[in-house]
């Protein structure tokens, strides 16, 4: 069965092929990514995990939390190659972001493997959400949007590589701050370092591109960031309690936080989200993009 909408993919004009360093800051991130590589198999001390230190309920909660984290990370497995291809299809795109995206995708794979493996040692990876609502939230078909010539690659990039990756970084830091289990901490430390580069990359390239945006293009970026925050984030994509505080995933995250197994409390995430949306609004403002007001029953006006 085919979808009603047919995705029209741009045609590549490969030559002249620019491979020179042209955005030094992003090339430096690419170089740093290559140097700061790590190996989930050997750089995480898996044997240090002691299940006896936790009660069954905490372990059960944490396996769901870390499984869900694997699902979130998994989005990158199709999204990153799609935006990489899109950049290659568009004439004149610099080589630096393309190179960086290949490193980012490997780091996403390491994070997926780490989250999956940790869920395994906690009691077993869970391969799907508990509700149809949650499932729908994850099935975003990002690769289609990234490759669709009718959609702006820059707007897609700002949403997912700047705004979303920046939020992931802040959440990862909060989870690390609150983690006591040594294995959870190690995974979160490695992830935080990678996400620092990912978020920096997103905002650096967004800034680079913003200089050439027309007024309609800025409006498009604004509309897509707004839609993403309203329909995805505030619906509970990263913080399940925003979508349904009573859901299994939301309760699991709270219990994981209390056990020190690598999550943050709802209160901490609420403060973080409010601050982050304000920071995004300010940052987009510097790029000439206005972010309209948002609201959520648990967060108030943002």
């Amino acid at each position: 069965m085919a979808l009603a909408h047919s995705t029209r993919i741009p045609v590549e004009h490969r030559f002249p092929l620019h491979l020179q360093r042209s955005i030094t800051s992003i090339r430096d991130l690419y170089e740093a990514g290559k140097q700061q590589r790590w190996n989930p198999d050997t750089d995480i001390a898996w044997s240090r995990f002691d299940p006896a230190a936790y009660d069954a309920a905490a372990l059960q909660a944490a396996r769901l939390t870390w499984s869900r984290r694997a699902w979130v990370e998994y989005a990158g497995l199709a999204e990153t190659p799609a935006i990489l291809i899109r950049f290659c299809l568009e004439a004149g795109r610099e080589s630096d972001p393309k190179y960086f995206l290949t490193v980012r995708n490997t780091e996403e794979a390491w994070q997926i493997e780490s989250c999956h493996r940790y869920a395994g040692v906690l009691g077993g990876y869970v391969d799907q959400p508990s509700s149809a609502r949650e499932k729908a939230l994850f099935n975003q078909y990002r690769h289609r949007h990234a490759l669709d010539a009718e959609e702006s690659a820059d707007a897609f990039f700002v949403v997912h590589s700047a705004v979303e990756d920046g939020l992931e970084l802040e959440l990862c830091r909060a989870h690390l701050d609150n983690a006591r289990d040594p294995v959870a901490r190690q995974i979160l430390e490695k992830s935080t370092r990678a996400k620092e580069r990912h978020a920096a990359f997103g905002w650096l390239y967004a800034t680079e591109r913003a200089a050439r945006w027309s007024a309609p293009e800025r409006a498009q970026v604004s509309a897509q960031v707004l839609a993403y925050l309203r329909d995805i984030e505030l619906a509970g994509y990263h913080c399940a309690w925003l979508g349904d505080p009573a859901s299994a995933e939301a309760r699991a995250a709270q219990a994981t936080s209390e056990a020190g197994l690598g999550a943050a409390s709802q209160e901490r995430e609420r403060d973080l989200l409010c601050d982050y949306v304000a920071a995004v609004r300010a940052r987009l403002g510097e790029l000439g993009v206005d972010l309209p007001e948002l609201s959520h029953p648990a967060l108030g006006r943002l």
Partner: protein
Amino acid sequence: MSTAVLEPHTILDEPDDMFPLDLDVRIPKIRELFHLATQKQWDPRIDIDWEAFDPAPYTEEQRYAARQYWSRRAWSEYGAISESPALQIRFCHDKCEPDLRLFFTIRSQEESRHAEACFRMAEILGGYIEQPVQNAYQGSVATHGVRKMALDPEISVEAILAALVCGAEEIAFDVFRHLVDITRDPVARQVCASIMRDEVRHCAFGWRYLNHRIPHMNAEQIRVVENAVITMIEKVELNGYHSAWLAPDNPASEAEMAVDRLTWEAGLGSTVEELEKPIFVKTVQRVREQMRDWGVNLPTFSHPKIGEF
């Protein structure tokens, strides 16, 4: 920005659901490759001794030829950045074994490293060149068509990987091994050897996947694999995608062959028709033998410069 668009029916037009999301090890030999690649990462900026390059032994003509040769290699490696990631999208869409999806992320990163290393080699030789000197050659080097195949729901993953990896990449690998043997310049040889070490895994990936899949496929599905490999060899490899001397006779391919010869004479990294031809033939014969075990029967191929083989 490009304005032209393609509108064939692709996997992007089909509904999919990421759940249930299997992340377990399903093909241990491919997961092993993912871990091995993670361990064996290298950095072209640091791990190649660029300072060791001495331009003095080479004439200006040789350096210019080698610049062109290494630029062309960079274009070819770039093709894997621009096209092959579509396979990863396909693996996710088809819910292929998770091992493929994870391995391919690092494979794409390795292609970046290769493009970067070839670019740097062209730079120290005098400067990277952004496009073929003669436009006619673009058709041979621009694409092997993998992006299109990867997004086409009518072509199976098995057919794509058999054609791209067990066919095309196997040929490229054997030529690379030969380049390591004959390249005298220490920096160029280091680049070839570093790339070759990654290519070992790239080829192993394809064979391991097909060895895993073939026992579950019926005769019709295997026939699709066979046709894809034949097309890749006839339409892409024998059209000069990797080797200029196989491209149709025209001033552009002759110019590229002259570049290859000068670069080879200088020991700066290329090879020439008379050395590569037996390697090419032997590789195709070996691939034919190995694929026979799958029930894939490759026919006799023919090329004006090789004859029947």
